[in-house]
């Protein structure tokens, strides 16, 4: 509730008295809060605020500007009162008192963890930075694993822990401080040559990185909920193990060096190392060079939305009849051209703001592959390329799970368990998995390639028959059979392991990628390996779309899902039985749908002519017969509001240049609307 109150105060301070939308929001929130807190001085103030808001809304306030001023003052007073008079507002502020005990037992003089009065901004910033350091440490640890003598990598890892330790102790995050302190001691011994960064030691540092990441997430969660999660019991165990290694390592170093190095001495050494830049591409290096500014993601999204609206407004102006009727070369048309140019540049800039390199994602995957290969006992060489390729932030988040899934498949099913079998097949004993990103044809392509067994068509077919996905394999080519693994309910894992298990097939990957308006392609050569290719749009907010007309309505089909446009000749459209029609394209029948009929478009249906838009998606291939293709354009996707997002066949709206709303057709959904058995078969083949 405290949280609600704070957000309300914030909303009040941000709102303008002229903004009806904000005011109605505020009123509802006030009501909401009032219901919860019951009577009291705070409730009275809130009631008074509600009165003012309502009077402004109804136009009864004679001087809204002035009364709004008094609102701000009232809010400030309220906030002050809430700060001193906490119990009336905070129901569970999560003092974290119980949480400290576990840690205090194992940490040197641990002050209580994450105190609620911490400045959220500072703590938030710390979490972000800690994550960056930890990600960098992860990368360097992987480098150390291949080359234990890589001193630079070791220094980077050391610095990461050292920096976090300093910040954590300032912020009273005792668990993080304790863990980073111990890990730092361990790394220090390694730096001095008393320990070798390999085997157990390396494993425990990997574990420490994971535990630190968890603690960072906990601290972040504590910011939101006001509750500090109880630390994992495993943490105490990890601390003990690290300490054990530190003391045994120190003993081996025998005598002269103090067993538990004092942080101060290391601070003195620090400048020696921070000056030399790591030659390997540490993720923080380029970022530092460019002086990044941290911006709240929501504000960024809002900015990009606004730019999208500006683009629409601009095209409404430049394509209006008034402007077009002006003589070209006139002052107005010159200004409009200038406006057009600036708008496009702004749009590009806006889009680039959302783009992030895939590097962190790839590093995460490197770590995953390392852990997996150990778990499975398979030696795997993992290679990445194209880490600098940039992609929409939202896409990164949604393909992460898909990539995990694909990589698990590659390691679990792709790479042979027996190195001898690989050697016998003329391949290196260690498996090789590649993760690549590249730009191709205006899209981002992310590929996962393994040099393992490849798909086994017979096993796949047998499984598909067993699962009742297809009846027989007759007439299916190898390519078609390999497509079967994308169907729901298909998973070739013979036993459900905790790796590829869970009975989730590649259909999830496909669904995720198609939800992003992307595509999944698969190439496999038996005995030589498999390539899975995710073709993704550059950005989610804007798509390339083909605007088509059916009757009075205009629709947009994402260009990515269009394979070709055909003006059907008479005789190319064949009617099967009494109503289903197919478009015969190079002797291949494709189910044909007349949009007018499919979407119940008003107005007379044009039986003759038209353009068939051939689309291909998971649900299969289909031809959509439209009256006319109006052209291709970049489209800013708009949610349809309410929960119309779930309408089958429509994936969103778009504001057309004349200000009207057009609908973006979702091909899979459309086909589902008329989903017939014939179509399902078409999809399977």
């Amino acid at each position: 509730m405290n949280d609600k109150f704070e957000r309300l105060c914030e909303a009040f301070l941000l709102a303008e008295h002229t903004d009806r939308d904000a005011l109605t929001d505020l009123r509802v929130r006030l009501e909401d809060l009032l219901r919860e807190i019951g009577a009291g001085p705070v409730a009275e103030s809130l009631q008074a605020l509600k009165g003012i808001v309502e009077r402004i809304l109804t136009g009864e306030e004679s001087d809204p500007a002035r009364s709004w001023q008094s609102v701000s003052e009232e809010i400030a007073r309220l906030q002050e009162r809430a700060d001193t008079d906490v119990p009336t507002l905070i129901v569970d502020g999560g003092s974290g008192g119980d949480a400290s005990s576990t840690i205090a037992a194992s940490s040197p003089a641990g002050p209580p963890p994450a105190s609620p009065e911490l400045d959220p901004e500072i703590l938030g910033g710390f979490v972000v930075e800690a994550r960056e350091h930890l990600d960098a440490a992860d990368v360097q640890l992987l480098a150390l694993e291949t080359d234990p003598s890589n001193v630079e990598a070791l220094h980077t890892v050391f610095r990461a822990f050292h920096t976090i330790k300093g910040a954590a102790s300032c912020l009273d995050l005792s668990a993080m401080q304790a863990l980073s302190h111990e890990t730092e001691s361990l790394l220090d011994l390694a730096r001095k040559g008393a320990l070798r960064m390999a085997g157990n030691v390396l494993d425990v540092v990997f574990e420490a990185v994971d535990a630190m990441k968890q603690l960072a997430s906990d601290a972040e969660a504590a910011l939101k909920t006001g509750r500090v999660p109880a630390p994992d019991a495993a943490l105490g165990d990890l601390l003990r193990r690290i300490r054990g290694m530190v003391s045994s390592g120190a003993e081996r170093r025998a005598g002269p060096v103090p067993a538990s190095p004092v942080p101060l001495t290391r601070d003195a050494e620090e400048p020696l190392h921070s000056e030399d830049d790591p030659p390997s591409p540490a993720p923080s290096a380029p970022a530092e060079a460019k002086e990044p500014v941290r911006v709240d993601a929501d504000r960024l999204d809002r900015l990009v939305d606004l730019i999208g609206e500006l683009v629409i407004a601009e095209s409404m102006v430049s394509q209006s009849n008034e402007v077009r009727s002006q003589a070209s070369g006139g002052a107005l048309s010159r200004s409009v051209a200038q406006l057009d140019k600036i708008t496009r540049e702004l749009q590009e800039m806006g889009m680039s703001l959302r783009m992030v390199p895939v590097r962190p994602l790839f590093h995460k995957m490197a770590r995953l592959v390392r852990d997996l290969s150990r778990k499975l006992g398979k030696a795997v060489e993992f290679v990445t390329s194209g880490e600098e390729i940039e992609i929409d932030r939202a896409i990164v988040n949604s393909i992460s799970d898909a990539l995990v899934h694909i990589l698990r498949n590659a390691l679990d099913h792709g790479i042979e368990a027996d190195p001898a079998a690989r050697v016998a097949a003329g391949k290196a004993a260690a498996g090789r998995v590649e993760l690549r990103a590249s730009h191709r044809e205006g899209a981002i392509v992310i590929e996962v390639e393994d040099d393992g067994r490849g798909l086994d068509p017979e096993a796949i077919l047998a499984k598909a028959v067993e699962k009742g996905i297809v009846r027989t394999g007759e007439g299916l080519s190898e390519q078609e059979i390999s497509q079967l693994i994308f169907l729901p309910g298909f998973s070739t894992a013979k036993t459900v392991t905790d790796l590829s298990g869970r009975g989730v097939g590649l259909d999830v990957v496909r669904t995720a990628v198609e939800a992003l308006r992307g595509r999944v392609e698969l190439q496999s050569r038996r005995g030589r390996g498999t390539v899975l290719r995710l073709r993704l749009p550059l950005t989610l907010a804007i798509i390339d779309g083909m605007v088509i007309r059916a009757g009075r309505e205009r629709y947009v089909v994402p260009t990515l899902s269009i394979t070709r446009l055909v003006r059907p000749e008479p005789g190319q459209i064949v009617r099967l039985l009494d109503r289903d029609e197919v478009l015969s394209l190079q002797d291949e029948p494709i189910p044909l749908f007349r949009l007018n009929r499919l979407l119940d478009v008003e107005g007379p249906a044009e039986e003759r002519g038209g353009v068939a838009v051939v689309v291909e998606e998971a649900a299969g291939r289909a031809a959509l017969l439209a009256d006319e293709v109006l052209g291709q354009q970049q489209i800013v996707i708009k949610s349809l509001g309410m929960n119309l997002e779930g309408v089958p066949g429509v994936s969103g709206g778009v504001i057309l240049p004349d200000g009207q709303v057009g609908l973006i057709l979702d091909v899979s959904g459309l086909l589902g609307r008329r989903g017939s058995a014939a179509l399902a078969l078409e999809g399977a083949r």
Partner: protein
Amino acid sequence: MSDANGKETVIRLAATAGKYLTFGLGDEVYGLEILKVQEIIGLMRVTRVPGLPDVIRGVVNLRGKVIPVVDLRRKFSMESKADTERTCIVVVKVWRDGRGVIVGLIVDEVREVQAIAEEQLEAVPRFSGDVETPFLLGIAKLSPRVVMLLDVDQILSSSELWAVPSGADRPAAEQETR
């Protein structure tokens, strides 16, 4: 705001007094709480969305934002009538699952903003089996006529408007359960 149902009629009546935007629909006059009204816009070309209940005429562009519009005539099972130049869209904000949702209501004509006092109010008569009474906050007697005060949250939360399958997060949910 689903708990509004459970409240006592008496309390509701007292809370109902206030300012209302009145509008005409067929031969009747209805009132909408002014606090919920965002703005009034002229009727523009509505894009039909296939597969939606009849009550939703489609979507329109409200300054770069796509909002659904509800045909109140259809909602109240009145016979449909050709739009006139007086037909307009009242844009309201309703709350659903803690989220503010902007919706347009197509009405025949907008009349005026009227203050309605408590003594002008009457409780909603209960008709057995009548499905439309939950939409009403109360009835105001403003001579020479009666104004029905609509509970806009109720109108727009009735099941038919939300019968659309929520598909946005389906893939994720599937992944969890399998």
